[in-house]
C-alpha cells in the first residue's frame, strides 16, 4: 500500500465529497430533507459544525481510496465511479434503515431517496479519486507473488 497515493486520494476525495455534498444535500435537496423530518423536535443544528462534516467526508474518502487501491489493476474513472457508488449506496441504505428503525428523525421516504443520492455523491467522488490516482505512478518495490 502506497501511503502517498492513499493520502492524496483521501484529500482529493474529501474535498470533492464536501463540495458535492453541499450542492446535493443542502442546495438541491435541503428542502426535501427539511420537509421529511420525523416526529423528533429540535433535531437540526443551526449553524452546523462544518469541521464534523469535513471529518465525515475525509473518512468516507479514505474508504473509497482504500477500496480502489486494494483492487487488482490500475484504477479507471469508470471503476472509480462504480466503487464509490456501490459503497455509498450500500453503506447509506444500511445506515438509513438502522436510523429509521431506532429513531424518529426522518420519514420512510428518506430511507429510499438518501441512498440513491449518496450513490451519485460517492460515485462522482470515487471517479475523481480514480482520475487522480491514474496520473500518479505507483511506488516501485517488491511485489509479492500471488
Amino acid at each position: 500500500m502506497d501511503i502517498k497515493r492513499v493520502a492524496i486520494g483521501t484529500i482529493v476525495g474529501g474535498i470533492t465529497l464536501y463540495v458535492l455534498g453541499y450542492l446535493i444535500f443542502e442546495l438541491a435537496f435541503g428542502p426535501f430533507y427539511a420537509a421529511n423530518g420525523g416526529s423528533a423536535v429540535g433535531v437540526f443544528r443551526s449553524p452546523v459544525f462544518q469541521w464534523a462534516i469535513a471529518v465525515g467526508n475525509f473518512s468516507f474518502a479514505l474508504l473509497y481510496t482504500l477500496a480502489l487501491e486494494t483492487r487488482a489493476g490500475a484504477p479507471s474513472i469508470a471503476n472509480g465511479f462504480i466503487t464509490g457508488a456501490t459503497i455509498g449506496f450500500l453503506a447509506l441504505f444500511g445506515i438509513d434503515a438502522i436510523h429509521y428503525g431506532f429513531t424518529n428523525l426522518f420519514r420512510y421516504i428518506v430511507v429510499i431517496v438518501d441512498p440513491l443520492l449518496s450513490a451519485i455523491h460517492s460515485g462522482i467522488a470515487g471517479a475523481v479519486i480514480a482520475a487522480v490516482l491514474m496520473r500518479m505512478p505507483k511506488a516501485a518495490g517488491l511485489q509479492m507473488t500471488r
Partner: protein
Amino acid sequence: MDMKRLAIGTIVGGVALYAVGYLIFELAFGPYYAANVGSATGALRSQNLEWLLALSNLPLALLVTLGIESRPGTPSIASGFVTGAVIGFLVWLSVDAYYYGATNVWRFIIVLIDPPLSGLAIGIGGAVIAAVLARMPKAAGVQMAR
C-alpha cells in the same frame, strides 16, 4: 464475481451482524447510548422496528462480502475481520461525524465510542463471512490475465 458466494456471504453476514449488533449495541451498550442522547427531544423510538433493523444488516453484509471477494487470494478469518473492521470503523466514523455536525441527536462522546464498537461488530461479521467463504469452492472459469 460469483453470485452464489455473494448471496451466501450476505445472508450469513446479515445474521451475524444482527446477532452481534444486538449483543453490543442493545444489551451491553444500550443504556450508554440512551444516556448520551443530545438536546433533540423524542429522537429515539420507544419501540424499535426490529424487522427493519434485521434487514438493515443485509446491505452492510453485502458491502463487507464485496470487500472480501474483491481482494486477491482465498479469504481468511483474519483478513475478513480486518476488512469488516476497516469498513465498519470508517463508515460509522463518517456517519457519526455527519450526524454530530448536522443534528442534536447525540453528544460528542458517541462520535468517539461508536466507530470502534461498530468496527468490532462489523469485523466479527467479516470474520464469519470469510470463514464461510473459505469453505466454499470458487466457481471455475476463465480468469483475466493481470
